[in-house]
């Protein structure tokens, strides 16, 4: 799980171009959206692509993403249960 969380952080930093953010800056249980990383609606859509491309998980709509992208830990849990690659 820890490895998945770390990889996920690295992937998010890369696909969202968070140039000045380091994996340790992202707190496992902190909200991904809202304050903190300054992510927006396009970032949420980009995370939907990441889920499909890297883990073979298809999220149907952005509303579902809102649930899954609550925090890194929620995201990692969801991936562990649902991944197809």
């Amino acid at each position, binding site marked *: 799980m820890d490895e998945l969380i770390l990889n996920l952080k690295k992937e998010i930093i890369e696909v969202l*171009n*968070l*140039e*000045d953010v380091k994996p340790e800056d992202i707190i496992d249980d902190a909200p991904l959206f809202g304050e903190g990383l*300054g992510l927006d609606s*396009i970032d949420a859509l*980009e995370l939907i692509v990441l889920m499909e491309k890297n883990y073979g998980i298809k999220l149907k709509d952005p509303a579902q993403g809102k649930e899954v992208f609550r925090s890194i830990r929620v995201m990692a849990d969801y991936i562990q249960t649902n991944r197809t690659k």
Partner: protein
Amino acid sequence: MELNISKYTYINQLFASVNGKKLVVTGAPEKGKFLTALYRKLNVEYPKFFKMDTLSKLGFLASELIFENGKQRFIPREDGVIICFNRSSSLETDILFQSSLEPGNFFPSPSVFVYTLPNIVAGEIAIRNKFLGETSFYISEKFNPEQIFSAVDIAFQNNKTNFVLASWVESFELSCEVFMLLVEKKTGKDAIPFSIKCITELFNNEHLYG
């Protein structure tokens, strides 16, 4: 109405200049890293910069150089007009987006797609500075001083226009450059008159010999 060029800037992949004076930018040893080094030098806290495509980065940096230390920005205002021109629209980003559509590897990226419109650069400058005025983007085969002059001139025919930010901003294949002018109503004796001849000369000085 007499108009002046109150400030101008030029940036490409190798150097940046303001009012014809080259800036010293350190920490750009790797090729292709100049724009990031310039961003660092400017010391602005704007992480969205790293999400932009090259066209928007060029426009953003040029406008930062123009408005550095200026009082004109960050308060919502409607009296400024942003006009951009280029040759290749957003083709650089278009090709990047197209490459994500290969059969068997089809993962279109929403954050790339939104940059497949050239006028996004004008939007980025408007957002950064809180400029609510007109933003326009025109495409022409090559840098065309007459067209720039004419568009700025028309923008000032609206008597509510106090300044126009006009730029040639291009990023495709071998070209990567932005030339940006801040045009205002006559400010002082020493200011550069806004004319087709001046636009041409200022651009050529940077573009050809810089």
